[in-house]
C-alpha cells in the first residue's frame, strides 16, 4: 500500500509539472536560482533582459527559438552565445519557417535583429515573418487547432491505468507570455511591430562587388564582409559590454540564411575537392568567438544536402553548438509510407552542446517528426516501429504515447503487470523515457506464452 501511495503522489504532481523538468530525477534537490539583485553585496547580479530566462540546469541564460516544442527539446531554449545550425530540407520549404520564427520571436521580445542573406533582401524577409499569437483569443484558436482531430477513443476512461488519465496529452501547454510564443504561419506580422523593432540587414549582392580577388587559404570576401558587419554592430550597439552607459541591456539575434551556398561565393556545394575548403569553417570559428563575447544568439540555415564533401559537414557540425536536421518527405518514398502519413517530415537533433556541464541535456525522445498544420508548426514524437507490432490490438490514436501504452494493458487486462513498479516507476513527467522498449517488452510477454 505504501508503494501505491507514493506512486499516487507522483502521478498527482505531474499534472502541474513544468515542462522543463524532463529527466528522471531521483533526487528531490533542486538548484535554486540566483537571488534577485536587491542587495548589492554578495551573489551575481541577475541580468534580467526581456525574453530571456536562466536555464534550470546550469543557470545559463536562454532565449527562445520561436517554437516552444523546439525549446523543450533543446533543454529550455537556445543559450546566449551559441549557434543554432539548421540543415535545410531538400526543397527549402520548412527551414525558412524556423528561421522566421526565430526572428519573429526577437521582434516580439524587443531584441535587436541582424539578418544576413545572399538570396533575398532582408527587408523582404522581415515582411514575411509569421504573426504571433499573443492574446487569449488566439490561445483558444491554438487549442482548437491542436485538438482538432482528437479521436473519441482517446477519451476512454481507463480502468487499470486510471492514475494516468490525468496526465496531459500534449507535452507542451500554453507558455507564459514572456518566454516562447506561438506563431501563425498563415498570417504576416503586423507592420507596426517591424517598424518598432531595431534591425540591421546584410544583403550580399549590395555589399560586395564581384571582381574581388580571393587569396588562397582565406575567407571568401562575402564571409569577411559579413564578419566585419557583425563585429561593427556588436561593438557599436554595445552587446559586448563595451558601452557601459547603456542602462537597458538587450540581446542581438543574428540570422544567416543559406550559408555555404554558391550565392555566398563559397564553392563547397559545387565541387568535392574545393580549393578553399576551410573558408566556411573559419567563418564559423570566428563567428562563435564573436558570439561568445557578446549577448547574442545566432541561427544559421545551411544547405548541407548540397555539400559534396562529407568531411566539411562533420567539421561544420563540430563547430556549431546545436545542430538540427530537417528531412521532409516530399519526393521521397516515405511520403507514401502509412506510418508517416500524418507528418511532413522528420527532425533530427544531431548535436546539443555541453555548456559548463559534463553531460548535455538531451531529450529522451529520439524519433521526432514535424508537421505544418494550417497555422502552426508542431513537433511530435512519432510512434514508430517498436509499437507498431502492438497496434493491431488498439483502436486508439497512434500519435499519443502513454495512453497508447496503457490502453494496451486495458485491452489485454493483465493487471498483474501493473504491480511491477520497476517498469512503471512514475517519474516526474511520466513515461516518455523508453516507451519503445516498454512496449516491446509487453508485446513480447503477451504473445510468447
Amino acid at each position, binding site marked *: 500500500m505504501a508503494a501505491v501511495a507514493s506512486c499516487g503522489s507522483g502521478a*498527482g504532481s505531474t499534472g502541474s509539472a513544468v515542462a522543463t523538468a524532463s529527466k528522471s530525477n531521483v533526487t528531490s534537490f533542486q538548484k535554486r536560482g540566483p537571488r534577485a539583485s536587491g542587495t548589492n553585496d554578495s551573489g551575481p547580479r541577475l541580468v534580467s533582459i526581456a525574453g530571456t530566462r536562466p536555464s534550470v540546469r546550469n543557470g545559463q541564460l536562454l532565449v527562445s527559438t520561436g517554437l516552444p516544442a523546439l525549446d523543450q527539446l533543446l533543454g529550455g531554449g537556445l543559450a546566449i552565445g551559441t549557434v543554432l545550425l539548421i540543415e535545410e530540407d531538400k526543397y527549402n520549404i520548412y527551414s525558412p519557417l524556423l528561421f522566421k520564427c526565430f526572428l519573429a520571436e526577437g521582434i516580439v521580445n524587443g531584441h535587436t535583429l541582424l539578418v544576413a542573406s545572399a538570396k533575398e533582401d532582408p527587408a523582404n524577409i522581415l515582411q*514575411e515573418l509569421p504573426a504571433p499569437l499573443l492574446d487569449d483569443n488566439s490561445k483558444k484558436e491554438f487549442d482548437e487547432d491542436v485538438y482538432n482531430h482528437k479521436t473519441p477513443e482517446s477519451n476512454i476512461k481507463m480502468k487499470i491505468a486510471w492514475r494516468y488519465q490525468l496526465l496531459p496529452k500534449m507535452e507542451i501547454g500554453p507558455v507564459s507570455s514572456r518566454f516562447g510564443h506561438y506563431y501563425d504561419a498563415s498570417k504576416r506580422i503586423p507592420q507596426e511591430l517591424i517598424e518598432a523593432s531595431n534591425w540591421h540587414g546584410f544583403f550580399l549582392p549590395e555589399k560586395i562587388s564581384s571582381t574581388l580577388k580571393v587569396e588562397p587559404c582565406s575567407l571568401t570576401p562575402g564571409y569577411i564582409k559579413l564578419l566585419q558587419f557583425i563585429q561593427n554592430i556588436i561593438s557599436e550597439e554595445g552587446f559586448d559590454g563595451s558601452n557601459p552607459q547603456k542602462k537597458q541591456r538587450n540581446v542581438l539575434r543574428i540570422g544567416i540564411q543559406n550559408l555555404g551556398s*554558391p550565392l555566398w*561565393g563559397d564553392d563547397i*556545394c*559545387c565541387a*568535392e575537392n574545393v580549393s578553399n575548403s576551410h573558408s566556411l569553417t573559419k567563418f564559423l570559428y570566428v563567428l562563435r568567438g564573436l558570439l561568445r563575447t557578446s549577448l547574442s544568439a545566432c541561427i544559421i540555415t545551411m544547405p548541407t544536402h*548540397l555539400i*559534396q564533401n562529407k568531411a566539411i559537414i562533420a567539421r561544420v557540425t563540430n563547430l556549431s553548438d546545436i545542430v538540427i536536421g530537417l528531412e521532409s518527405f516530399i519526393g521521397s518514398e516515405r511520403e507514401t509510407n502509412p506510418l508517416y502519413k500524418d507528418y511532413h517530415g522528420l527532425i533530427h537533433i544531431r548535436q546539443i552542446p555541453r555548456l559548463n556541464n559534463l553531460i548535455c541535456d538531451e531529450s529522451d525522445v529520439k524519433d521526432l517528426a514535424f508537421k505544418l498544420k494550417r497555422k502552426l508548426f508542431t513537433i511530435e514524437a512519432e510512434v514508430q516501429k517498436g509499437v507498431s507490432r502492438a497496434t493491431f490490438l488498439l483502436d486508439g490514436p497512434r500519435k499519443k504515447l502513454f495512453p497508447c501504452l496503457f490502453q494496451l494493458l486495458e485491452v489485454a487486462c493483465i493487471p498483474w503487470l501493473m504491480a511491477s513498479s520497476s517498469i512503471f516507476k512514475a517519474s516526474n513527467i511520466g513515461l516518455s523515457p523508453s516507451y519503445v522498449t516498454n512496449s516491446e517488452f509487453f508485446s513480447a510477454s503477451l504473445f510468447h506464452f
Partner: protein
Amino acid sequence: MLDSLLSLGGLVLLRDSVEWEGRSLLKALVKKSALCGEQVHILGCEVSEEEFREGFDSDINNRLVYHDFFRDPLNWSKTEEALPGGPLGALRAICKRTDPGPVTIALDSLSWLLLHLPCTTLCQALHAVSHQDSCPGDSSPVGKVSVLGLLHEELHGPGPVGALSSLAQTEVTLGGRKGQASAHILCRRPRQRPTDQTQWFSILPDFSLDLQEGPSVESQPCSDPHIPPVDPTTHLTFNLHLSKKEREARDSLILPFQFSSEKQQALLRPRPGQATSHIFYEPDAYDDLDQEDPDDDLDI
C-alpha cells in the same frame, strides 16, 4: 504545362542527356516566346550562329538578338563588336536595359559556361538576373525575366548540377521511352511544395511544340498494386477476439487493485503536500470483521 514554362519567370533549367537532346526543345521554347512578342536574347556559346538559326523562319530570326560567343570566345580578334566582360558581362548588360517588357534569355549552354567560369560566379550572376524583377528601387519597372538554360547533366558531377537546380524555379528533365520524348517538369514555387508533372511531347520540324499523350502502356505482368491491408489477427493459434458475453464478463471483473471511487479521486487530486497521511481501508470480500480476538480460542 510545358507551354507555360516561361510564364513563371526565373531560371528554367533544361537538363538533357546524350539520348534525349534538349536543344530542339530550347529552340521550340525560344520560338514560342518570340511569337508572343517578348524580347529574346540568345547567348550562343556551344554551336555556331548559323546552326542555331537553322530551322527558324525569317520572321523569328529577325526578332532574335544573338550574342555570339562561339566564334571567338576569348576575344582574340579584338574587334569592336565584341562584348566586354564575356558572357556574364553580356548577361548583365541585357538586364540593365531600360525598356520594360518581358525578356527571355536563352543560354546555350549552361554547361559551356560552367566549364569556363567558376560555378559560384555563374550562380551569383544567374540569381541576380533572374531575380531582378522582384527587387524594387529601380526607377523603371522592369519586366519579367526568364532565363532558359540548357544543361548537359552528364558532363557535370552532382555538385554543380545540385547547385544550379537549387537556384532554378523550374527544372525540366528530358527522358523518354520507345522513341517518344518526355519532359519531367519540377516546379518550385518560393514557399510552396514543389509540383512535378510528366509531359510527353515531340518537336515538329518547324520547331513548334506538339504535346502528346504518353505511349500506350503494354500489359506487363506486374503484381497487383492494391494489396489489401493484412489483418494480423488471422491465422493465430490463439483467439484475440472477444464475444459480447466475454466482453461483458470482462467488464464486470473486479480487479485486485480496484479502489473505491472516493479513494481513487483522493489519489488523483493533486495534494499540495500534507503533514499527515491518510489511511484508506476498504474491507475485502474475504475480510472478517469480527472484533473477537481469534487467539482467545486457544486453550493453553
